[in-house]
């Protein structure tokens, strides 16, 4: 086999659904719209959040303090989500991921802490529109109306679990395992059908801390980001 035939490319979990091909500019008539935030990088950080040396190492590399239970913090390095007392998830861009991972491994030397690149195993779905909370209520039992910017919680959606993160008043991000991404998408699309659901084109710029991690995104105003 010739080497010239081997041209690897990154394929996001929902690429087979061709969401990009279906995406339209959402209108106010669309009560709910969604799309996949493709090919972000996901680093799992494990370490005891009560250990000041671990917290210092994370702050030095990412510029972020460890988030409180059920919350996230964001900055230039990305979004750091609380997952459990000894686990955080860092959403970042593929561009930054490798250097962040190396820097974290170095900073964790001598500590009981580790960093694992899970970029291949997770993806994010962005849900927006006036009826977004109604759609979430169809999908799971959590009190989604109470979720405020700065909060990120993991809960059950039908037969899978996902992290729900409220970015701002405009929309929420659902972070799900690759293997359940198609299921979650189908559940979402079916639940949202009564509200004139459409696949929407993601804004290429904005203050949403996750959307601005996309390839080619421009950040309008970093000051507006949720800092907790």
């Amino acid at each position, binding site marked *: 086999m010739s080497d010239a035939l081997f041209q690897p490319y990154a394929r996001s979990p929902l690429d087979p659904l061709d969401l990009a091909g279906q995406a339209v500019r959402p209108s106010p008539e669309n009560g709910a719209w969604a799309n996949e935030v493709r090919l972000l990088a996901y680093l799992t950080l494990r370490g005891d959040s009560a250990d000041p040396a671990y917290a210092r190492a994370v702050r030095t590399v990412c510029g972020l303090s460890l988030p409180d*239970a*059920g919350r996230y913090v964001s900055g230039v390095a990305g979004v750091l989500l609380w997952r459990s007392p000894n*686990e955080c998830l860092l959403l970042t861009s593929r561009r930054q991921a490798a250097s962040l991972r190396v820097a974290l491994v170095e900073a964790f030397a001598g500590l009981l802490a580790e960093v694992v690149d899970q970029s291949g195993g997770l993806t994010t779905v962005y849900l927006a529109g006036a009826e977004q909370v109604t759609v979430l209520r169809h999908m799971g039992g959590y009190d989604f109306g109470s979720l405020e910017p700065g909060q990120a919680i*993991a809960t*059950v959606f039908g037969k899978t*679990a996902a992290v729900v993160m409220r970015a701002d008043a405009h929309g929420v991000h659902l972070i799900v395992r690759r293997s359940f991404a198609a299921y979650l998408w189908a559940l979402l699309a079916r639940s949202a059908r009564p509200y004139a659901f459409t696949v929407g084109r993601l804004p290429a710029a904005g203050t949403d801390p996750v959307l601005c991690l996309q390839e080619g995104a421009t950040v309008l105003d970093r000051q507006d980001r949720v800092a907790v």
Partner: protein
Amino acid sequence: MFLIYCPYCKATREEEEFHNAGEAFIARPADPEAASDEEWGDYLFMRKNPKGWHWEQWQHAAGCGRVFAVKRHTLSYRIAGSWTLAAGKALFLQEGGV
């Protein structure tokens, strides 16, 4: 449906997010090699199954993944509270639990 408080997430969530992980604070024989078959069998298989207050382990499977202690009434299904395993064990011993 239970509403269970997770001491790690510091939030009350629906039972759907949790897995029951059985009776809490079952003491493993200190020296398994020296334990009689009966002692070992009790440890593995025999459970209190009370009608009344029961110390249980619950795992916040869909949330933080942690296991913690819940004191629940098996008849009324009332939940007295949730604690981390260490805090729950201290309370359990204080109540004279064995």
